[in-house]
């Protein structure tokens, strides 16, 4: 059987990060990931992924700028003919570093934004960062890179969407991704505090529609729905091990950035060739195609539209990654999603729940960071 190669490599260079967002999708336990791949190991991974067909190189983390060799890695990607994309908090993007990255051939930058004003933004990020993000955006524009701004939306910032869009416009973004939180990693732990109400979503969608009309020549606006409110699941990763290859800081290869949570055998680039991992490893072949599917997916006419949804979500909600994604209204486990949605829309629900921020991984002590305050309706 011939397996099509991936289009993109998501290289999670390090999980070290100056931010401590309560919706972080990185693994809960980070000790396992401290033994990071060396520069030479990453260069070999890039080369092997390119040979397999990967054309886009997403340099992410954690904060990829915390890697001292990030400029060298960008240059390697460029030499291989890949389109490189730096996914950053913006912290650490000095003018000097930016010039080096430009000279190395960096193509595109994505900066995350947490909220539209400094106090709320710094609370959500768990560290003073708002002004530095704006400075980083100015640097990106000065360098002539296209700028994408990423905003993770949730119950505690959705009502600020108007202000967020205005801020993103002021930053000069060419493109904004408004992504409602997906519940993995740290976000799973904070799900109750993060899941918005239907009314919040409807209000936000109206604002997004109006902004799309107003800005249609200047800024592309992507709106990624929270799948808990959908009838059908998302076509996760365009199908398991179909389009994207993820490599974590310690060299674990994954079909999706949340797949570290699944009870499947690991595949590490230090032990195996990238081609073998992609084409033959149990982890990558387990849910590829449609043969693995249970009912109702197996006989569903949408089985090649949404591929049964998200394996990681099925696992988190039901304990079995081979179940139909419970987001689907046809799933026998759909009641689990309905219960969470019901709770999020309960008129009796008390004020906003406090978010548990991600502890600083370098401090090593859980709960060392003071919890961000979360005033209702702030």
């Amino acid at each position, binding site marked *: 059987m011939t397996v099509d190669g991936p289009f993109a490599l998501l290289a999670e260079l390090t999980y070290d990060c100056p931010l401590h967002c309560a919706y972080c999708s990185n693994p809960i336990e980070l000790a396992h990931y401290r033994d990071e791949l060396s520069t030479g190991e990453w260069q070999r991974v890039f080369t092997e992924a390119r040979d397999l067909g990967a054309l886009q190189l997403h340099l992410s983390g954690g904060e990829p700028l915390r890697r001292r060799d990030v400029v060298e890695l960008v240059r390697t990607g460029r030499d291989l003919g890949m389109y490189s994309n730096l996914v950053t908090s913006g912290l650490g993007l000095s003018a000097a570093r930016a010039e080096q990255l430009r000279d190395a051939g960096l193509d595109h930058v994505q900066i995350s934004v947490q909220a539209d004003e400094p106090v709320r933004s710094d609370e959500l990020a768990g560290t003073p960062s708002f002004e530095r993000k704006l400075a980083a955006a100015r640097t990106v524009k000065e360098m002539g890179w296209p700028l994408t701004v990423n905003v993770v939306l949730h119950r505690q910032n959705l009502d600020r969407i108007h202000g967020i869009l205005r801020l993103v416009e002021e930053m000069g973004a*060419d493109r904004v991704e408004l992504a409602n939180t997906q519940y993995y990693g740290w976000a799973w732990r904070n799900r109750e505090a993060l899941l918005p109400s239907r009314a919040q979503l409807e209000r936000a969608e109206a604002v997004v529609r109006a902004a799309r009309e107003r800005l249609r*020549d200047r800024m592309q606006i992507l709106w990624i729905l929270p799948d808990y409110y959908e009838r059908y699941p998302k076509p996760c990763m365009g199908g398991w091990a179909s389009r994207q290859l993820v490599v974590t800081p310690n060299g674990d290869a994954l079909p999706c950035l949340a797949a570290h949570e699944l009870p499947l055998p690991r595949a590490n680039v230090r032990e195996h060739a990238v081609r073998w991992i992609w084409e033959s490893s149990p982890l990558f072949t387990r849910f590829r195609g449609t043969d693995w599917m249970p009912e109702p997916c197996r006989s569903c006419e949408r089985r090649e539209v949404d591929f049964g949804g998200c394996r990681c979500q099925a696992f988190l909600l039901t304990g079995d990654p081979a179940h139909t994604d419970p987001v689907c209204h046809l799933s026998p486990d759909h009641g689990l999603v309905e219960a969470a949605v019901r709770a999020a829309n309960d008129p009796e629900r008390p004020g906003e729940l406090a978010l548990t921020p991600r502890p600083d991984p370098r401090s090593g002590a859980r709960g060392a960071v003071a919890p961000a305050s979360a005033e209702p309706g702030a």
Partner: protein
Amino acid sequence: MPSTVPTRIDAGDRPRLARGVRLTFDRARQRHVLLSPETVVVLNATGTAIVELCDGERTVADIVADLGSRYSKVVDADVREFLAGLVGRRCVEVERDDR
């Protein structure tokens, strides 16, 4: 004014690759591809020939004429439809004289 979302492609439009978009050859697939922040567009030979002429100078009519001198059957409507698709995916933008 450059526009990324025209309703249709006119003969007088001058298409060019949008900022941040690169045309490159993919050895793994043996095809030319357009690379942009979040998209890979795999091109066939005709598509590649069209994109290579999108320099912001030539009009769509120029491109059709140029292709017509090299290929036997070049359908104007097909070229326009192809370019409209790339504009929709934000890989190409067109310069249009306001009249």
